[in-house]
């Protein structure tokens, strides 16, 4: 593997947040907050730069650490999917950071608070970990990235210090640790069988030893536990619903995507030579079950934040519909390209929509002092922007045209028909209807005249603004011409010569 120009961009996108996270500890809460805010434009610029370099060059951007090339050394490799995720992470983290200032900010002269001390470095840690998880090209470096992600996400879950969230955090930690060790076991087997952990080199080797197959099975189970695909989703609803709104947004939008991208790299990079259509059908079957059961749970849920969390369980299901489509057709075919784009756009548009939805839910819960859906009457009058944000994000999740969610679902639908697997198309359509059901429940309740409409608490307009901004992005993604999604095709491992 050769280093390419502009390789320093993804490297800095990983290392600067790491440096900021480490430095934040001695700086203390107040200066850590300022440092985070100062990092936002830099991180966004690096992500845009990487995306431009990938798009213009038409090839992945590679940085060889210490000039050592794999297999001995380590490489950062930003392909189109990685660039898209870098951009998503930079925007979502930026919005969440601005949103969180009201909850976790420290005023001049105020003593450091525990929550404020922890929040900013944890946010920076999530950022660096997700960037690392999409650009690192070595399976063990990716293990460290996954651990970084877990160690940052777990304390975010129980930042409020209540017993309920602590229990949710413990359950999450146990699932995540089990997932990590299964993944690590796979790493050991792959090294033993192939003598390298570099994904690109492994993809060229097209290994088919039993040890590698077993490794992929173990790693897949481990990563599914971290991605929370049904039936390994049990930890997600209490963890994502219990966390503070800003943290929930990051957890649902970004953290689960790290392990998902890694799963794609394993299945369609390392194992590109060995299509596993049977196993892929099982994964998509679990995905379909997640869409169905997650949506039904969301329909029946009485609490707003839990509803949004169950919606995440359902939307994760869509991500797995691309597996059998990619596994059953030639890697360089049109159908494969559509399925790949569909999955990638689903990951990205869900990130924006879900972050917007959690932030909106957080604003409502803060204003009402509770998040019981039936008692949200009057929200439409008292906080129209918030409800609009929720609605726009909901449109994208449903897949109503024109929105990012529509683009994703339409691509998946066409790919399913193109691959002759029409049953997954039915799942996509049915899932959209169910999503519409639970989004409608919230909107209908919010638009009712409420006798107990709360006095407007002084909540900064920036909070509504960033939430609305994220929702708008999730919709606007659908206005992009399809060619714009060509970015995520650049450097797809399975189609490399």
């Amino acid at each position, binding site marked *: 593997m050769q280093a390419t120009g502009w390789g320093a961009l993804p490297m800095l996108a990983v290392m600067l947040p790491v440096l900021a996270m480490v430095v934040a*500890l001695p700086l203390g809460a107040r200066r850590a907050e300022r440092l985070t805010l100062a990092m936002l434009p830099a991180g966004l610029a690096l992500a845009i730069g990487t995306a431009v370099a990938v798009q213009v060059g038409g090839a992945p951007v590679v940085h060889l650490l210490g000039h050592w090339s794999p297999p001995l050394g380590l490489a950062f490799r930003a392909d189109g999917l990685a660039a898209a995720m870098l951009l998503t992470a930079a925007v979502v983290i930026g919005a969440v950071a601005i949103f969180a200032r009201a909850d976790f900010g420290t005023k001049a002269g105020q003593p450091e608070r525990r929550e404020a001390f*922890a929040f900013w470095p944890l946010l920076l840690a999530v950022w660096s970990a997700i960037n690392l998880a999409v650009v690192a090209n070595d399976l063990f470096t990716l293990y460290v990235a996954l651990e970084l992600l877990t160690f940052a996400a777990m304390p975010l879950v129980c930042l409020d210090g209540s017993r309920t969230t602590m229990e949710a955090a413990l359950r999450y930690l146990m699932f995540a640790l089990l997932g990590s060790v299964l993944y690590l076991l796979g790493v050991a087997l792959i090294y033993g069988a192939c003598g390298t952990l570099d994904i690109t080199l492994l993809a060229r080797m097209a290994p088919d030893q039993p040890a590698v197959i077993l490794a992929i099975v173990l790693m897949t189970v481990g990563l599914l536990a971290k991605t929370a695909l049904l039936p390994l989703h049990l930890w997600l609803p209490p963890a994502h619903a219990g966390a503070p709104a800003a943290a929930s947004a990051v957890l649902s939008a970004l953290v689960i995507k790290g392990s998902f991208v890694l799963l794609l790299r394993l299945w369609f990079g390392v194992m590109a030579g060995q299509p596993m259509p049977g196993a892929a059908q099982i994964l998509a079957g679990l995905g379909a079950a997640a869409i169905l059961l997650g949506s039904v749970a969301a329909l029946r849920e009485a609490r707003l934040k839990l509803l949004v969390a169950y919606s995440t369980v359902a939307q994760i299901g869509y991500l797995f519909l691309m597996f059998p489509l990619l596994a059953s057709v030639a890697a360089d075919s049109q159908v494969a390209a559509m399925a790949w784009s569909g999955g990638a756009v689903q990951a990205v548009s869900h990130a924006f929509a879900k972050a917007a939805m959690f932030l909106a839910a957080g604003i409502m819960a803060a204003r009402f002092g509770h998040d019981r859906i039936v008692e949200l009457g009057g929200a439409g009058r008292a906080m129209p922007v918030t409800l609009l944000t929720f609605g726009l994000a909901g449109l994208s999740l449903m897949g109503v045209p024109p929105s990012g969610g529509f683009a994703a679902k339409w691509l998946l639908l066409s790919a399913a028909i193109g691959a002759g697997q029409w049953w997954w198309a039915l799942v996509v359509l049915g899932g959209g209807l169910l999503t519409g059901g639970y989004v409608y429940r919230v909107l209908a309740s919010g638009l009712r005249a409420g006798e107990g409409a709360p006095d407007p608490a002084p909540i900064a307009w920036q909070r509504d603004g960033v939430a609305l901004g994220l929702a708008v992005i999730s919709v606007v993604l659908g206005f992009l011409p399809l060619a714009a999604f060509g970015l995520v095709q650049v450097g797809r491992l399975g189609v490399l010569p």
Partner: protein
Amino acid sequence: MIADLLLAAAIAAVATGSVLARRAFTAVALFIAYGLLLSLAWVRLAAPDVAMTEAAIGAGLSGVLLLGAVRRLGPHADAPANLPPGLLLTALIGIGCAGVAAALGAAILWLPEPAPTLAPQVAAALPTTGLGNAVTGVLMSFRGLDTLLEAAVVVLAVIAVWSLAPDGGWGSAPGARQPVVGRGPLSLLARMLPPIGIVVAAHILWVGADAPGGKFQAAAILAAMWLLPWLAGLATPPRIAAPWLRMAVVAGPVLFIVVGLAGAAVEGAFLAYPPGWAKPLIKSIEVVLTASIAVALALLVMGPPEPDAPR
């Protein structure tokens, strides 16, 4: 051969005992034995660096941590968080785990022959780093990024553990206050051992460039030399608000990242050391990193700040 079989049988027995023990205290005691026996296995596998780390961290620090947890939880340590699975489910899980172990064993037996290895490449590239210990070369040069990220993980763990502090104690000293034991044997040990331990740690760090040893092992010993007086009630840890303490935790990782970024600026690649500078730079990073990791490991064992700790 027979020695290996006996050792393996002993390790498996101790592990089973630890996992199935009825009382948490027994389980932890067996777990410490497990860690120590495992480090013997590492010696047999010709990995002295790992053997030292396993004994120091896997058995030593983890043992102290878990024993402390069992003591502080008291009866809670044995209390189930939820209902144990029924007999049938337990049997099914057992069959499943046995299946995983069998598949894994088969996969290991069928690993390709000759084994793929990077040893020749490491041996060929090692002279450019000026180091004699191949493991240190991998950790600090070829896969320096992993080590750097791992140092960041340790800092993050400190932040995460502190974030679990109960309300009311923010800024105070970490960990529960330890009873002062006065003139007992522990006190004697806590006074006599640290000077020796510090010398040993410095030695292990220093030879680590060329012989088995290095920063993790040295850091674990240093951390133990701080924990011992703490456990004896002789040393009160500083308040977590203390700037120097926070600086100490991050100094090593910061230096590592700054050197890495300087490499990117000067040599065109993150963590590229200029020719001839590799060994002195690596040694400097290792010294500072050892101190930082030692402080961080000790803080991790002590736990989050407590409201009843001395302010």
